[in-house]
């Protein structure tokens, strides 16, 4: 399966990329996904304040997501005020 990861705001800087296409032999759950990101980035996207959108819809509990073929997951740090 193939999926797209999108890094927003300061996460883009931390990841060193704004998005990444990944491939896996089976759907990925949250912890399997984090494992692919490396320790530092996994810690950053795992932070409580970072929200997740799956295919354009906000996810209430990111720990419960399953990434399937064709999915796009976005990691959303807190938005900046004015």
């Amino acid at each position, binding site marked *: 399966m193939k999926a797209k990861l999108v890094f927003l705001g300061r996460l883009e*800087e931390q990841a060193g990329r704004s998005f990444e296409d990944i491939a896996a032999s089976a759907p990925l759950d949250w912890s399997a996904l984090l494992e692919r990101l490396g320790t530092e980035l996994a810690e950053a996207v795992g932070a409580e304040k970072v929200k997740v959108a799956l295919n354009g819809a906000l996810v209430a509990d990111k720990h419960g997501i399953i990434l399937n073929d064709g999915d796009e997951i976005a990691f959303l740090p807190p938005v900046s*005020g*004015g």
Partner: protein
Amino acid sequence: MSDVRLLTSAFDPAEELCAFTAALPMAGGVVSFLGQVREGGGVEALELRHYDPLTLPAMRDLAGRVRLRWELDGLLVIHRSGVLVPGEPIVLVAAAARHRRDAFAAADFAMDHLKSESWFWKREQVGGEWRWIEPRAQDIEDIGRWG
């Protein structure tokens, strides 16, 4: 009528406001707010990033909530994304109503929620270096006013 737009290039607030009010002769009052990039602190540029699947849909959703809460003849919400320089318009909100109080409150509410809730990430360039802007406590407090 609600007109909600996310723009990636410059816009002319005076022109937009003119067109908005011209289409709403029944409105007795139009309240508008213009936000522009603040000059100072050595800021050379401000960049706003958005995420297509979320940003505009959430702005439309906010406009819908404003329309449910106040009796309006029209609502205009324009927000920029991309790289902006000091003095450039970032956001224009205008609310048109039969009576002014609804228009004032609706524009105020829309701005407070745009600032604190909408899906924009901002960074500013100072001395050639970009740095991300963190959420402000004041924006969270502002939104608390509305219950």
